[in-house]
């Protein structure tokens, strides 16, 4: 079983978790943190540089864009969009993927075959393309982005977890539980699920980063959201056309995405190092 206090002491888990908490905090507190309305246009003050640069205005810390909108406020509200998509699509993809992995891995047979063919089908094809096709059919909107990400990314959970479920199913304690008359549902909930928990957390963390990247891609190429919802992808797309005037919005949005993804990678990497038996063994042998 996993020793969770040991896991939390890992610096990767700590730093990754802290960064994720900060980003989530920014997302939740966006209405109070943002100094301006993210969509308020001030055509007298367009393309202002950041406040520390010559010509900057302290009221606009990161400057303004072509329409005179405050870059910092847009960035903060975009964090909210990103967190919204990351959390909901990760929950959706995880629930769908875990359920199907448990069914495929534990029940086996025809169900396993069907589920795994579906996984293979979606993996043999660029995820971006399928997500964009779904968006083309569903229309814009953050909710549709979430649906598209779930439809594509549940496969990540299903593929990894299904093989773990199969391994656990062969263990003695599962056989013992079944001999004692536990129903399949009881075995899955009491013996299988706790044992795949570390992997689930790892995948959830990675998926949050993946979902943010997917949202950025979709909003970059095809207005994922309604026009008045700022997202990092929209900030980059808008910013690229004024890149010579002020690179600040693009730099800020790119940095935000990298920090978010880095946090999820750190978190899951630390988790893997602390919970993967092979890794722990290797460290034990080295000491």
């Amino acid at each position: 079983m996993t020793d969770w206090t040991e896991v939390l002491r890992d610096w990767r888990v700590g730093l990754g978790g802290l960064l994720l908490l900060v980003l989530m905090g920014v997302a939740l507190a966006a209405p109070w943190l943002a100094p301006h309305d993210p969509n308020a246009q001030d055509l007298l003050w367009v393309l202002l540089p950041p406040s520390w640069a010559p010509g900057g205005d302290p009221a606009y810390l990161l400057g303004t864009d072509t329409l005179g909108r405050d870059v910092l406020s847009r960035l903060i509200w975009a964090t909210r969009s990103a967190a919204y998509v990351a959390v909901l699509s990760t929950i959706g993809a995880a629930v769908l993927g875990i359920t199907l992995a448990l069914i495929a891995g534990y029940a086996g047979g025809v169900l396993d075959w069907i589920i795994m063919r579906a996984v293979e089908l979606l993996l043999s094809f660029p995820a971006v393309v399928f997500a964009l096709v779904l968006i083309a059919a569903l229309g814009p909107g953050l909710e549709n982005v979430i649906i598209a990400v779930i439809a594509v990314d549940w496969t990540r959970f299903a593929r990894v977890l299904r093989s773990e479920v199969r391994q656990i199913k062969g263990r003695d304690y599962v056989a013992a539980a079944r001999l004692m008359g536990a129903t399949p549902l009881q075995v899955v909930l009491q013996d299988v699920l706790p044992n795949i928990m570390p992997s689930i957390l790892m995948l959830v963390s990675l998926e949050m980063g993946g979902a943010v990247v997917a949202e950025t891609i979709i909003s970059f190429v095809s207005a994922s959201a309604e026009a008045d919802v700022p997202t990092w992808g929209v900030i980059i797309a808008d910013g690229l056309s004024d890149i010579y005037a002020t690179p600040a919005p693009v730099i800020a949005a790119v940095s935000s995405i990298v920090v978010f993804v880095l946090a999820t990678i750190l978190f899951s990497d630390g988790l893997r190092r602390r919970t993967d038996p092979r890794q722990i063994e290797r460290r034990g042998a080295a000491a």
Partner: protein
Amino acid sequence: MAELGLIGGAKGRAGGLRRNGGARTLKRLARRFATSIVTLLAITLLVFVVLRTLPADPVAMLMPGNATEADMERVRALLGLDRSVLAQYAIWLGDALKGDFGRSIQHNTPVRVLIADALPVTLQIVTLSVGLGIFLGFSGGLLAFTWRGTPVEAGIEMGNGLAMAVPDFLWGIILILAVGVGLQWLPFIGLQSPSVTVPDITGFVLIDALLAGDPSAFLDVLRHLALPVFAIAMGLAPTVMRVFRSGLMEAYTEDYIASARLRGQSERQVLLRHGLKNAVIPTITLIGVQASMLFGGTLLIETIFGLPGIGAMMVTAIGGHDLPAIQALTFCYAVLVLATTIAVDVICLALDPRLRIKDQS
């Protein structure tokens, strides 16, 4: 169809190499090929159904805003859209097998012609990117391996971890910011400078420039491709490095390394003859696994850098709800990904005798 020819040829070669188990290997490849065809059909059907049954109405998108309901019905019947989705798919598939993917709604040109123009651009980008990505990954991996246990390794590891957090399209934007706008070293829009013209011989601009004997045009195109290629390569290199390095470490725990050392081979010879060979195979497998991500990456990179490949074509088609183009392009992507995975399989079978033995169990 070029891809199919390539697979057939490679398959024949791989089969010819086998002394024992050749028939089995051939059978395995044939089965792989058959499943790929089924996958291809399933993907096109899936996309077809998604595009036809979800809320957006293709006819409404086609028609001007003041079209009457009767007009819509007529167009629907004309396009066969009043029949069942499966019947429509059968018609599409029948035409597609004859090489007819319909006409693009946006351009009113056969989709096949548009793809034939765009595909070489994408293939050039992907080929160069894979080459550069493998080169960067191998160099990093070799450096980290030779300096294992030193700060150099730790430094490379950290850089690798950071690079992994940046998806390829963000590399594109970072490169535009740093190299294109900041340093102004390289162009970042389009495939060539407006003043440069390259005759259309093979469709592959780089090759055409060479065939036309125009080194300055070749260089110009290369300069335009440098940033997008580097961006995709940077998306690939960190993973390549990780797999290559762990492949090296794994190979060095095997007995054949110790025995090569005992036979008096220098460390350099051990690395070149035994270490590298065994670390290369998992890396090639990785390219197969990453194939769909790789081709997916071109979508954004082509859009960002204004390159007229199938990725940019896909983005425009989606923006304009150009259903025939979307449908044909998804087919095209699926063929590319499946062909790459099969090619990777063939290369691995040819390189690694252990795989051919394992086959028999």
